[in-house]
């Protein structure tokens, strides 16, 4: 019988070796992989018989990608292009990329030239995603993506298959919400790095398999006594990387007890509406996502969402993991900073990039936060 720690170790191992994990997952499920970044209609790919695989860059030396994305572009997309050009992603039958920021808008054309061996399926989300016209547009857009995936698979995708795929994902999202809740009361067992890697492993595994592991882990965590830590923090930003930062958090006994990260909770925090078919539910999940800088929201509710997360999880502070040159995230920062200050919630701003190798100053900032709150 598995222990919580053995499941955690296994999932961390999977997250740290994506190439191997994806190969195993494809073999186990008898599927081919389709890559995606940020928000993409994964359920469509799953329904078409593919294994959707997250491509969130990585800590690698950029040599080839400089031809298309200069040093002042998002380091995640630089790494994605680098991996694509280097052949690391050759297992992927296609990639689905959303056009939610300036870099991603350019990527779609760059990708065709830089990585010609892997077809790209752009996903263009509507600005006015909550209006009926925006929802109608997104339904059409998802239908186009569905047709492209059908062409790739060489077969049509039935509505029943899509409903089944959506159910797999909705069960996974529910399991992930339960896990993050359980993890917040076990900040030593599920420390910052483990929490990130456990969630990240889901990007390289079949969602049904990841759901099974997460459900069991959540059950086992519930049997363990609750744990304390020096600082309980809420993380916000694009990704909780590089993992070197998470190591420093752990060294200073700072736990991430909740997150507002695009790679983590924003993927599963919005439950589906009860009504409608699978395609409508996918559209509404995008419409119902609040406080995400990659989806247009003039009301700017991110600050209040962070305040709510702090209260719900009895957190001591918010940590901004600002991916260097991530414009949408940078535009949000002054807005929620002011709101957090008004609410008396300490905020630590850390500018990060995937290819960073010096953590000295970040270590000082994290340690200072811990000293400030003790």
């Amino acid at each position, binding site marked *: 019988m598995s222990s919580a720690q053995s499941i955690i170790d296994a999932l961390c191992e999977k997250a740290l070796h994506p190439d191997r994990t994806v190969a195993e997952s494809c073999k186990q499920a008898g599927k081919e992989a389709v890559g995606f970044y940020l928000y993409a209609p994964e359920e469509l790919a799953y329904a078409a018989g593919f294994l959707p695989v997250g491509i969130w860059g990585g800590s690698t030396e950029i040599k080839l990608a400089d031809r298309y994305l200069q040093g002042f572009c998002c380091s995640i997309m630089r790494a994605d292009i680098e991996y694509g050009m280097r052949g690391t992603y050759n297992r992927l039958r296609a990639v689905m990329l959303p056009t939610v920021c300036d870099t991603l808008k350019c990527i779609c054309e760059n990708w065709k030239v830089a990585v010609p061996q892997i077809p790209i399926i752009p996903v263009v989300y509507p600005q006015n995603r909550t209006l009926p016209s925006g929802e109608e547009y997104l339904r059409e857009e998802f239908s186009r993506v569905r047709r492209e995936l059908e062409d790739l698979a060489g077969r049509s995708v039935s509505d029943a298959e899509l409903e089944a795929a959506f159910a797999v994902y909705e069960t996974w999202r529910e399991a992930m919400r339960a896990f993050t809740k359980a993890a917040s009361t076990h900040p030593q067992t599920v420390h910052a790095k483990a929490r990130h890697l456990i969630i990240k492993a889901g990007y390289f595994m079949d969602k049904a398999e990841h759901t099974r592991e997460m459900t069991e882990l959540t059950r086992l965590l519930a049997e363990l006594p609750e744990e304390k830590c020096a600082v309980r923090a809420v993380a916000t930003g694009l990704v909780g990387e590089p993992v070197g930062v998470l190591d420093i958090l752990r060294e200073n006994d700072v736990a991430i007890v909740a997150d507002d990260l695009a790679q983590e909770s924003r993927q599963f925090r919005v439950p589906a509406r009860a009504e409608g078919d699978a395609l409508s539910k996918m559209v509404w999940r995008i419409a119902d996502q609040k406080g995400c800088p990659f989806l247009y929201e003039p009301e700017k509710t991110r600050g209040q969402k962070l305040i709510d997360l702090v209260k719900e999880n009895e957190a001591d502070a918010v940590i901004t993991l600002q991916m260097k040159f991530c414009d949408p995230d940078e535009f949000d920062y002054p807005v929620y900073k002011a709101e957090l200050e008004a609410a008396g919630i*300490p905020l630590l*701003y850390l*500018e990060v990039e995937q290819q960073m190798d*010096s953590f*000295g*100053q970040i*270590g*000082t*900032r994290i*340690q*200072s936060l811990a*000293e*400030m709150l003790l």
Partner: protein
Amino acid sequence: MYLGIDIGSSSSKAALMDDERRILGTKIVNLGTGTKGVYEALENLYAEAGITREDVRYTVVTGYGRLLYKDADRQITEITCHARGMHFLMPRVRTVVDIGGQDSKVIRLDEDGTVRNFVMNEKCAAGTGRFLEVMARVLGCPIGELAVLAAQATQDVAISSVCTVFAESEVISQLSQGAHPNDVACGALRAVAKRVAGLCGRVGVEPEVAMSGGVALNATMVRILSEELGCGVTPAPDCQAVGAIGAALLAGEFYRKANPVETA
């Protein structure tokens, strides 16, 4: 006795304190982390105080090189140590500006000297002592003379670039076009002051404002920063040793906490 050590990127500082929180001495050596600077500072400090290493009950090390120094009982960040040191020296200070060789920081303090908030510059050297070192080299003067040159300026030469490398080219270009070195020196100080004022804006400035670190010895810099912030800025007494003094204070506190009977 309690020892505080602050190992910065360009200098090493040490302070000694007794049980009554009297400063018994401070020493500064202009050699930073990875050098023998800290050992030289300690040797001088012990010799001046007439003590040996065995007389020190507890040591706290801080600064950029704190993690490499293995002879301390505990390491604490420079943010906390500068805050404690400044509150001890100037209890009415609520905003601390420390321009170090490698980074700059602004610390907001509560009435009891605890850190309410802080901000540090990003990785780039603009707004740090390193920027001033580069400017002094281009102007062909020791860094200590930048203040003297700048004080004699008749006008600022605006340095528009925020990057140290580009600013160096810009200054060379200004000098080749006939700009007076005094005016260029003043422009360099203002460029740093503007950058630091920007940092201050991120945490908010609450008077009184004081400067710690070696750059606080530059009176022209203090004046220009005061102009940029629109409020008075005071250099701390023994400004270079503020972090080390804070570390020595904490050393005493940690020791007394661990040995309540002995120190009662």
